């Protein structure tokens, strides 16, 4: 009970921190512009002659997140280390876990907000036709989980350095691998080298696991995949924070 209180105190602080800097607003505006532009112009929404959101809208999410999520997560620990407030935070009567989870939740909620603000797209589709709103909902859930996985990876890279820029670049590269492992052109190459490897490699791709959600299928294995990436990454973050202090 008490520990969730501590987590929530941290979460509130971090959320407030997002909105006192212009970064939050810039982020949301860019995200919404990208979503609108890619869905309606690049994604060929109008040419499809069908009121479906899934392909033209959600197909782009793994790529948007590639740039946007590391930008959201980069300050979490890097800034704390640069300014020295980590020394305050970790000498408060809370566990490192509560701090890690609190910070992660704040950023994840922030991403949820950005995602929720894409609702005009859903309204437009519903206005133009009769999409399957159930599928749209599962795709949203999947998208949010995927964002969480990216974010947890950004937590690791942010804990590694006191420079936000370095954190951003490293997590972008790692997340790129998670996408490419399931990106059709890459899979084709792997298939030619060694067909047995394909299953193994694609298992680690966010693309593979996001696919199900886009079809409206809530597969527990996919959910578990994203949750384990989050859990594992946050655990790694705690290890890094500890070893850093151990000198």
């Amino acid at each position, binding site marked *: 009970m008490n520990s969730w209180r501590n987590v929530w105190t941290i979460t509130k602080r971090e959320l407030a921190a997002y909105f006192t800097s212009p970064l939050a607003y810039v982020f949301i505006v860019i995200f919404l512009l990208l979503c609108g532009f890619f869905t309606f112009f690049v994604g060929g929404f109008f040419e499809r002659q069908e009121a479906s959101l899934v392909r033209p809208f959600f197909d782009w999410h793994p790529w948007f997140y590639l740039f946007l999520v590391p930008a959201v997560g980069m300050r979490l620990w890097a800034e704390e280390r640069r300014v020295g407030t980590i020394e*305050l935070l*970790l*000498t408060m009567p809370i566990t490192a876990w509560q701090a890690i989870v609190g910070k992660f939740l704040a950023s994840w909620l922030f991403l949820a907000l950005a995602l929720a603000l894409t609702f005009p797209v859903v309204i437009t589709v519903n206005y133009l036709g009769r999409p399957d709103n159930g599928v749209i909902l599962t795709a949203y859930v999947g998208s949010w989980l995927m964002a969480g996985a990216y974010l947890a990876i950004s937590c690791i890279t942010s804990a590694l350095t006191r420079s936000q820029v370095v954190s951003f670049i490293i997590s972008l590269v790692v997340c790129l691998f998670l996408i490419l492992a399931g990106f059709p052109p890459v899979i084709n190459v792997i298939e030619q080298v060694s067909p047995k490897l394909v299953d193994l490699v694609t298992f680690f791709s966010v693309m593979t696991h996001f696919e199900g959600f886009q079809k409206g299928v809530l597969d527990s294995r996919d959910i578990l995949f994203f949750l384990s990436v989050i859990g594992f990454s946050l655990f790694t973050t705690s290890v890094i924070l500890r070893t850093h202090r151990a*000198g």
Partner: protein
Amino acid sequence: MIKVQNLAKVFGTKRAVDGVSFSVNRGEVLGFLGPNGAGKSTTMRMITGFLPPSGGSVSVGGFDIVEHPIEAKRLMGYLPENAPAYTDMTVYGFLNFTAEIRGLRGDARKQAVSRVVEMCFLGAVLHQSVETLSKGFRHRTCFAQSIIHDPDVLVLDEPTDGLDPNQKHEVRQLIRRMGEKKAIIFSTHILEEVDAVCSRAIIIDRGRIVANGTPQELRQRSEWAGAVTLRVKGVVASAVTAKLYQVPLVKKVTVVDDKDGHVTVRAFPKSSGNGALAQAIGEAAHEWQIEQLHSEEGRLDDVFRSITMPDTAKEAA
């Protein structure tokens, strides 16, 4: 309240803290002195649970900082070196946050915040962003954070750094007053503070404790302690020194100044302490015209220098 035993910290191959032991009871203010890089901050970081020790143990109010960190941290307030604070918050928001994370809710929190705002004179900047605060005000904000839950144990790393003289004075008063009921450790480079505030002082050098005692005791270790300075008129310096060497208690006499017939000499006693030397010298000099005669108490900066830089201190003497 604080018990430190054989504490050690190794960074790579460097032993930043090397077997430090001491304890601080309620009602004591312990001054932590030492040259730059001596290991003061590192010791404090281990006491507050930020850095895990490489060896030894710390217990705060009976709780081991490694085994029971939450309980120990609850008892402690900590002002880290350089007074970090969240730059994206206002002073009020920051204090509110630290109060909340210390478990203060509702009215208790409001009272705690307004109490420290008053104690640290933060009223004028309450709604200003921490980022735009001047250094001194940021320091005070972080100091306010450390006492917001009225802790039993306070660990303050250079609490008066960057404050103006008035604020330095206020903070010293505050530390001394709080020290009556709490156990306080604070580090400083300002030796007068030791006299003004501490009930005990530790000098640490290259990771080891090299002196531990009350300010009075430390001062006794100065070679100046008990030395007598004498200024007379109308005599030549050589006559003065010759005469003083005949006084049985005198070990050494140095001429400090010899100008226009005014001679100033300093006599060092064989065994330091007591005012007997001044008495004896006063008698030996009674036939001259004495302009000044006083006994040195011993100076902390001298002790500090001779302990932490034995070689250069001798050269200067």
